[in-house]
């Protein structure tokens, strides 16, 4: 696929930005920060109405049959608005596991519901700082899951989860209905991500892949989610770049605009550089979907985007001075999101290692 956006893709970018500009409210998001387990329902209604849940699901399963590039562009718009519910990324991850997993009946059962927004899906791979633990603590024996996945995004309200588990020393990827698990909400610095510790106690689950196939599928799903997240991070980092620039063009100190001081303008120019390098990696990664080199491209995108969003949230606040740390201004919405996104689809340690594995064939 070309790395130049076509007209349809440009329209998706413009339209998703326009809709979110009109419907998102900073005050609503600030209010949600102080409530545990509460999703931003108006955003999710918008996502369903706009067909974002259906975007990257194949047409035969009730989706629109588009790909990572299109979903990435929507994610970029949601990132800029700190909109979002975890399902845009994690629902997509669950859908990809179903599409490429080995159970056609299960795919036919759930994909149309995920596409229409009738069901919410998530992905429970990580345990602690391991995005894809070599030997998962959650076990799968005789069709049943046992153990706890900590702070799974979206788990408070999700209907299904794709779970990375251990079956007799081999990895396995299974689908479980969360009605059969117990969920304990995790109060977080970014509460609309709906984190919950999910405890399985003999919860029935269906196999999507086992052994090496499970690992390959889980890595592909994780890489795809990382590319969506990287777009979201670029959207956030770019919004912070513009916010910092606009403030530097308004605020005066020592008789001139602060944007005229090199300590400020150079910092903002560096923010621009981080955004553009990350954006270029995102475009390349999305266009590499399904091709050799996709994991490497996804790692490039993820690393550059995490660095861009983290740095830009630090620096944008710094450029604002005192006003930047107030609750009301809301820059902390980005600070918080930068960190939750940095961890959710695999931290930098994971992606740096994966990149070097891919590049050299040498594991850490």
């Amino acid at each position, binding site marked *: 696929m070309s790395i*130049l956006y076509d007209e349809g893709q440009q329209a998706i970018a413009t339209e998703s930005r326009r809709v979110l500009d009109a419907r998102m409210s900073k005050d609503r998001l600030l209010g949600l920060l102080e409530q545990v387990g509460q999703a931003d329902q108006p955003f999710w209604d918008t996502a369903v109405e706009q067909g974002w849940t259906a975007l990257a699901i194949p047409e035969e399963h009730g989706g629109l049959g588009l790909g990572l590039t299109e979903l990435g562009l929507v994610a970029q718009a949601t990132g800029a608005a700190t909109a979002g519910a975890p399902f845009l990324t994690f629902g997509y991850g669950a859908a990809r596991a179903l599409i490429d997993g080995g159970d056609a009946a299960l795919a036919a059962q759930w994909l149309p519901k995920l596409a229409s927004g009738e069901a919410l899906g998530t992905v429970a791979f990580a345990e602690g700082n391991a995005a894809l633990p070599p030997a998962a603590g959650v076990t799968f024996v005789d069709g049943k899951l046992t153990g706890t996945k900590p702070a799974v995004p979206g788990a408070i309200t999700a209907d299904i989860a794709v779970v990375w588990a251990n079956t007799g020393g081999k990895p396995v990827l299974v689908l479980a209905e969360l009605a059969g698990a117990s969920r304990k909400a995790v109060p977080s610095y970014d509460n609309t991500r709906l984190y919950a510790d999910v405890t399985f106690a003999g919860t029935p689950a269906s196999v999507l892949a086992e052994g090496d196939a499970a690992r390959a599928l889980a890595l592909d799903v994780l890489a795809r989610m990382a590319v969506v997240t990287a777009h979201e991070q670029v959207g956030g980092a770019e919004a912070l770049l513009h916010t910092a620039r606009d403030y530097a063009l308004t605020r005066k100190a020592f008789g001139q605009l602060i944007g005229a001081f090199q300590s400020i303008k*150079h910092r*903002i120019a560096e923010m621009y550089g981080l955004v553009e*390098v990350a954006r270029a990696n995102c475009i390349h990664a999305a266009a590499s979907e399904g091709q050799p080199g996709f994991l*490497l491209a996804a790692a490039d995108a993820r690393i550059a985007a995490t660095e861009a969003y983290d740095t830009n949230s630090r620096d944008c606040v710094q450029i604002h001075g005192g006003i930047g740390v107030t609750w009301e201004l809301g820059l902390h919405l980005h600070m918080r999101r930068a960190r939750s996104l940095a961890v959710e689809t695999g931290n930098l340690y994971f992606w*740096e290692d994966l990149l070097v594995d891919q590049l050299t064939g*040498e594991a850490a």
Partner: protein
Amino acid sequence: MSDLEAYRLSARAFLEKMAPKYAREARAGNTVEQDLALGREYMAAKHDAGFAGINWPVDIGGQGLSHLHKITFDGEEMQFGMPVQFFGISLGMPVPIMMHYCEDRDFVKERVRKALRGEEIWCQLFSEPAGGSDLAGLRTRVEPDGNGWKMNGQKIWTSWAQYCDYGVIVTRSDPNVEKHKGLTYFWLDMKAKGVDVRPIKLAGGDSHVNEVFFDDVRLEDSQRLGAVGGGFGVALHTLMIERYIATDSGGFGPHLDEFVKLARHIEVGGRPALGDGRVRSAIARNHAMRAGLDSITKRAFLMMQAGMQPGPEGSLQKLVAVRSRQKLSELAMDLKGNEGLAFDEHAFVKTDWGTSWLNAPTGRIAGGSDEVLLNTIAEKILGLPQDHRPDKGVPFNQIPA
């Protein structure tokens, strides 16, 4: 296969044929003079094969192809390490400016041919001791002298001036007006009476840059390029031509593969370096950065191919790539430890970490320092205010010293 891909393959075939005689290995141990002689020979062969003046008009002696063809060829050529460093500036800026502004077309055609064949070399005399980044603050002055001009002053950092036949120069013709309004642009004969070239030895040990002194140098009015007082515009035009040069996400230093190759055979604390988190992190961060720059380049290329104007993000290349090359070179030297203390002054910057490190500061300063590039991004792309400029709107000769 696209036309450009076919072109790339034909370029590659030509370069592979030339490589045994002219590429990196063949040049090992050459003195500068030997390398220059080899370079002139290679340029003539390139001209004979139809790979010279790729994007220049046919009627002036070029091939009449697109900028993309030129970038394609340059990208391939860069991988071979051909002895072309002497001719990059000559053909990059001064000769194209002559093609555009010099009215004596027969003279220009002859110069173009000889410059393309490496028989003549041109330099660009812009920077001065009192200012490199502040181009319009230059002090080399010309005054009317009969029907021509007389020039006095000094330029500095002039690449390859000691081997040059001609140069282009910006001078101050009127100190009574604002600094950028009193400039006039000329070409000059570097062998003319009163021109004195003195090489400057750089930190890396080589002397490719020079000081150039002018003592009552006579310039004919026919050597003027552009209007009297219009020199700043011609100078900006000269710098704009640089847009179409090939980029290198390695910052013109070693490829990341070289670092990985080094790490593969080295241990840190008794364990393989490639298993060391610090080494892995450095590789990963550099890869992500370089892949981003490569993707920016590829997108710009595709946009030009589609007849669109590439985005301004191309201006990040040198800024981001060269400073990361500097750090990666330090890390590579750390990896080598005592074995990295040995230094070969003839080693190549693209294959030797010590050479890459020692010459990296030049890359961060020449052709726009990091700080000036950041200012340009801040002001031209992001619309931030200019720095405080006490010299603005003031006649040159009243600017506080």
